[in-house]
């Protein structure tokens, strides 16, 4: 069984690990690094619960091999908060109650954070377009959109 040594920076910490070729990035994060904030939803590239940032871009980590992330900079929901201070996107989801069950929330926040990184002042249409690959089965998206708008507001 083929294994490879990879070096991946996750939330600012460099990890060196030996991984099987077929190991998915989401399993590497959850099981090897114990970063269980990234969820597995549909497991078929539809729902976006497993969204993480790879080199700044939101991707579905159930559809990326861990070995493909060798040399990359990965950010997960655990990396949003800095020095005890919530990321604006987390503040937004908190203030606007951008969730019900919370299952899609880590993925939604990663996609939202990436959007704001690229476009600090998105329209509602921009937000809806950006999160169109992240499914929420509870909220109807209204508060999720408000949460991202909240995060975009200057403070």
């Amino acid at each position, binding site marked *: *069984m*083929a294994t*490879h040594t990879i070096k991946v920076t996750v939330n600012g910490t460099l990890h060196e690990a030996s991984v*099987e*070729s*077929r190991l*998915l990035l989401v*399993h590497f994060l959850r099981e090897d690094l114990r970063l269980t904030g990234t969820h597995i939803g549909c*497991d*078929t*590239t*539809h729902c*976006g619960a497993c*969204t993480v940032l790879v080199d700044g*871009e*939101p*991707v*579905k980590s*159930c*559809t*990326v*091999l861990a*070995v*493909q992330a*060798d040399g990359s900079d990965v950010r997960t929901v655990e990396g949003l908060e800095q020095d005890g201070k919530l990321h604006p996107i987390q503040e937004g989801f908190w203030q606007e109650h951008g969730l019900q069950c919370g299952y899609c929330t880590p993925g939604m926040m990663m*996609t939202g954070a990436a959007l704001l990184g690229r476009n600090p002042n998105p329209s509602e249409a921009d937000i809806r*377009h*950006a999160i*169109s*690959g*992240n499914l929420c089965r509870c909220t109807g998206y209204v508060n999720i959109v408000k949460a991202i708008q909240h995060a975009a507001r200057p403070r």
Partner: protein
Amino acid sequence: MIPAPFDYHAPKTLSEAIALLQRHGDEAKVLSGGQSLLPLLKLRVGAAAHLIDIGRIPDLEYIKEDGGFLKIGGRTRESALERSDLIKSKYPILHDTALVIADPLVRNRATVGGNLAHADPANDHPATMLALGAEVTATGAKGQRTIPVDKFFTGLFSTVLTPDEILTEIRVPVPPPRSGGAYVKLERKVGDFATAAAAVQVTLGAGGEIERAGIGLTAVGPTPIKAVEAERYLLKKKPDAATIAEAARLAAGAAAPSADRRGAVQYKREMARVLTARALAKAIERAGGR
């Protein structure tokens, strides 16, 4: 879900990748963005003993005009196409297409070359490239060759590429003035494959008549379909409502859909007609015809 075991190779040059493909032949698969291949491996609908990842080979990601062609590197990501100002301003049909492929997260990894080489008749770029009269460059052990897109697809998930070849570039002839194109897709939700879709690219003559027309159809046959009869009918015609209606009728006649949960045969053929009419009208408008 976890794929069956395979070995993974990350060649740093094209020649290294081709050597690996030669060595492993049918047992190897090219991994580009992986957004079709990895789900297939996870669902165990497909299998490969070796994945050759072309993601670490430099110079396969670009969008540029050069020598009368728009050249797109085989590994160019859909998100790059979606955000390119050149594509937005001059190739609206490609912008339309990039916007409706899967979803924004998938597009951050999915590639244009992969969308073509995977040869899923429900993929979106094949129809667009047929409409544009594009060609692809394949690089293999014997060197490079150029293949017109209308000769590229041989059947369901199959192309003329040999096991040692990699799709390295897509070339679209730079459209002359008074050209326009559009891609119109019917999907049940964001991220779904097309129920049906139509790609149309037209060039108008000085008198406003149609000088060239390309029409491609998505998800209404075992391969992407070039609606040749409709294309021929449009030549020298005034782009009016009656012309559009007749061309759409002819295009629907070229469709050979099969029934699935997205619809019955008759419904899909009817959608091919409606979508062709809409794409054609939009293409004509963008060409400055209305």
